[in-house]
C-alpha cells in the first residue's frame, strides 16, 4: 500500500467514432479487507476498500464494477469502450468511508 490514495488513468486523447479504445485505470489504495488483526493489539483492522468503480462518458454510464474485500491492494481495472463523439470520460472510485476519488479525461473524436 502506498501512503497516499491517488487515482491514475490512461486514456487515448483521440479516437475514431465507434472505435474500440482501451482504458486503463489504477488507484493506489490499501484495500484493507476487514479480516486482518493488528499484530500488536489483536484488534480487528476495520475494513477500508474501494467498493465501487464507475466510468461515465458525457454523464452516461460507460462501465462500472463492484469491488469486494478479496480484491488486492492498488486495484487495476482495464476495459474497452467505444465512444460515439467527443466528450469527457469521468472516473469515480467510492471508498468505504464515503470519500469519492475522481478524475476526468477528454477524448476527442475526429
Amino acid at each position, binding site marked *: *500500500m*502506498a*501512503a*497516499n490514495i*491517488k487515482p*491514475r488513468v*490512461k486514456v487515448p486523447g483521440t479516437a475514431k467514432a465507434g472505435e*474500440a479504445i482501451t482504458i*486503463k485505470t*489504477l488507484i*493506489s489504495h490499501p*484495500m484493507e479487507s476487514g479480516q486482518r488483526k493488528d499484530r500488536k493489539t489483536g484488534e480487528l483492522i476495520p475494513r477500508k476498500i474501494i467498493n465501487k468503480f464507475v466510468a461515465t*462518458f*458525457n454523464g*452516461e*454510464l*460507460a*462501465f462500472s*464494477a463492484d469491488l469486494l474485500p*478479496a*480484491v*488486492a*491492494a*492498488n*486495484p*487495476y*481495472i*482495464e*476495459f*474497452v*469502450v*467505444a*465512444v*460515439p*463523439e467527443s466528450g469527457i470520460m469521468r472516473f469515480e472510485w467510492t471508498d468505504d468511508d464515503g470519500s469519492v476519488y475522481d478524475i476526468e479525461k477528454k477524448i476527442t473524436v475526429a
Partner: protein
Amino acid sequence: MKTLVALSLAATLALSAGQAFAGEDSELVIDGETFVTKLDAPADSPLAEIISGWRFRSNETQELQTDDFENPAMIFAEYGEELWSRVDGAEGKSCADCHGDASESMKGLRASMPKWHEGKATLFTLEDHINWSREEHQKAEPWKWESQEMLAMTSYIGLQSRGMPVNVATDGPVAEWYEKGKELYYTRVGQLDMACANCHETNYGNMIRADHLSQGQTNGFPVYRMKWQGMGSIHRRFKGCMDNIRATPYKRGSDEFTALELYLASRGQGLSVETPSLRN
C-alpha cells in the same frame, strides 16, 4: 447515437496464480528498451547462466512489468519522486536541494550497491546511504528500513539506474564483506538445515511446493510482490527465506544481511537493474 458499449473487461485482481512457465524464454522490453535478463556466467561463477527472477515468473506477471502504468511498483517510485523534493529535518533541506535532478545525480548508483562508504568506513546499502544523508545533511530522523518512505525512495533512486548493468565492487575494503557474504550463502542453518545454495544454486528452475525457484537475484529490488500487496526490500526477502527454512533471521540492516546482499549482487553482475520490479 449516444449509446456506449462496454466491450470487454479485464480486471486484474492480482489473484491469479501462474501455471505455465513459457515465460522463461521471453525478453523483457520496457518502453522499447530491452533488458538483460539472461547472460552467460563468467568462468569463475558457480552458475552456468545468470538469470533474472523475472524469467521465472508466469506470463501474466511478466507482462505487468513491461508497462509502467500497469506495474504497481511505479506507485512507490512516484511517491519517492514527491519525497525527493520535500523539505525535511532541522536543516530545512530536501534531497533535491543538494542532489538536484535525480535522473542525473542518482544515475548508476543502484547498479553499484552495496558499496563501501569512506566516511563511515563500512559497507553501505542504499538504505544506509539514504539514512546517513538524512541524519548528516538534513538533520532529519532516519526512516525505518521497511517504511513506505524508505521503499519509495529506494524505488525512485533505483529507477534512475534502470536498464544499467549490475556492477558491484567486490575487492579492496569490501573483500572481507564479500567473503562473509559467501560464507553465509553456503552455510546451512535452521531446523530444515538449508543454505541459500541448496535452493537457489542447485535447484533453481525446480518447484518448491507451489513456488518456482529462482536464482535469488537482487537486480529488481525493491520489488512489488503480489503476495505482500506492496513493496519490500532485499532484506525483507532474506528474512522471509530464513523464516521458511525455520532459522532465526538476522535483522534488516544487519552486517550479515548487508554482506549477503553484496555477495548476491556479485552473482548477478551484468544483469540489468529492473528496479522497481514486480514479482508474485
